[in-house]
């Protein structure tokens, strides 16, 4: 199996991810929530590294932490007063929501734990980026171009929405 270092790293990263996620939904100040979300993204990137997907980990940090959290922070800072706005994170339906979430966790956890997962005997490739490049250009060419169209549509749509007076 995996070495103790990998186990230790996994547990630390998982703890940070879960703790951060709980903090995102329970923090009083919404900007703190955004920062805890950044922490969650970084530790998820660490989990990707443990899964031997370093490209994905780096892209996660580059896009999510570097671009999307900045976007969220800009949006928050432009629309709020800075000092001491406290957000109520719970309302009257907090308890049923928590129960529903726990039920979902039980179902998913039970499924994951009891399913007969097939484990591959091959080892992961040491250098994933050239393989990704070839796959993107050859096998997945059409989804790649469609992704370009989706990005264009997103850009145009967002500008229209933001610029309407």
């Amino acid at each position, binding site marked *: 199996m995996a070495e103790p270092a990998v186990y230790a790293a996994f547990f630390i990263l998982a703890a940070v991810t879960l703790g951060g996620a709980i903090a995102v939904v329970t923090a009083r100040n919404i900007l703190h929530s955004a920062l805890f979300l950044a922490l969650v993204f970084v530790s998820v990137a660490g989990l990707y590294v443990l899964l031997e997907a370093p490209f994905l980990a780096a892209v996660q940090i580059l896009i999510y932490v570097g671009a999307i959290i900045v976007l969220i922070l800009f949006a928050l800072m432009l629309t709020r007063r800075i000092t001491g706005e406290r957000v109520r994170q719970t309302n009257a339906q907090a308890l049923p929501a928590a129960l529903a979430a726990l039920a979902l966790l039980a179902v998913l956890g039970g499924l994951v734990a009891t399913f007969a997962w097939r484990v591959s005997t091959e080892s992961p490739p040491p250098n994933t*980026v050239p393989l990704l490049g070839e796959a993107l250009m050859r096998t997945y060419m059409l989804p790649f171009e469609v992704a370009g169209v989706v990005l264009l549509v997103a850009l145009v749509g967002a500008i229209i929405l933001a610029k309407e007076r």
Partner: protein
Amino acid sequence: MLDAIRNLWSLIYNLFPNLAQALAAFLRGTGLPGWGVDLLMALLSALVVVISVLLGMLGMTLMERKVMGRMQNRLGPNRVGPLGLLQPIADAIKFLIKEDIVPTNADRWVHTLAPIVAAIPAVLVYAVIPFGKGMAAADLNIGVLYILAVSSITTIGIVMAGWASNNKYSLLGGMRAAAQIISYEVPLVLSMLVAVMLAGSLSLGKIVEAQGGLLGILGWNVFRVPFGTLAFLTYMICAVAELNRTPFDLPEGESEIVTGYITEYSGLKWGLFYLGEYFNAIAVSAIATTLFLGGWQGPILPPYVWFLGKVLVIVFILIWLRSTLPRFRVDQLMGFAWKVVLPIALVNIFVTGAAITLWQAFVK
């Protein structure tokens, strides 16, 4: 006799890797478990890198003040120690002993965390830079992407600083600085991609080796006209903008917006921002050397000497730019990024691609 000289020379040439191997062999000999040896070696390499860069940064602050002074026809600091060489120590002590003032109604935790979040990426970047042959702490095969990903965390630190200070000017300065950094990040990536295309790998070690070429000098990417030189220029422009240095230092311009997002910081927290900025400046120089100036490649002299020399040249260029050029206005700055540098960088990628394809067709 000749053999002895050759052995000595190869020892000096590979000085640091040899030292590292000797140390690792020694540690293994003492009976530590394998992972313990690896951990200690990793820790040691991290500490050595951080301390060397710290010394380099202190040297750079002094170099900047003296060189700027000379360019302005005056002497730089020369009171503290012989020729002012102890000035950085005096500055460091000053940071440590100043009182830390957190403004009322400022968000304490975020105010303290912001300089830490801004300083961490500045240190982490050095993990993949090859300081000499076989001298990268961790030569990842996604080296370039790692650098980009880690540098993008600084933006969050700056936004945190701007908002946590409960000061209009800090907030404005923080947002402007963040807007500037993100605007110049895309052309930065595009210019680095040229070096990646020429080497066929994201690993910094391989990019340096691909510049081995003729005589160890002519193979450097900057000499591959026109796309290599253009990529180097684009990289330098974007890097200076990312560093918030003159001529792109409007977010910190003292006369315009007080000191922008650093206004409400004092003592070591300010020192950490300052440290982060200089660490980043040296990192940018190191990356520019690795990607475009051939890294540690060069005839005759040992690789780490070449690397150090090239980094010094780029640092000097950064200081020179600061002394010479006036500051951009904020709308000029942003317009320049999106309307000039980005299109040029995009076109450059295609020129590089076309050139590579033509070269391959030609060679076959």
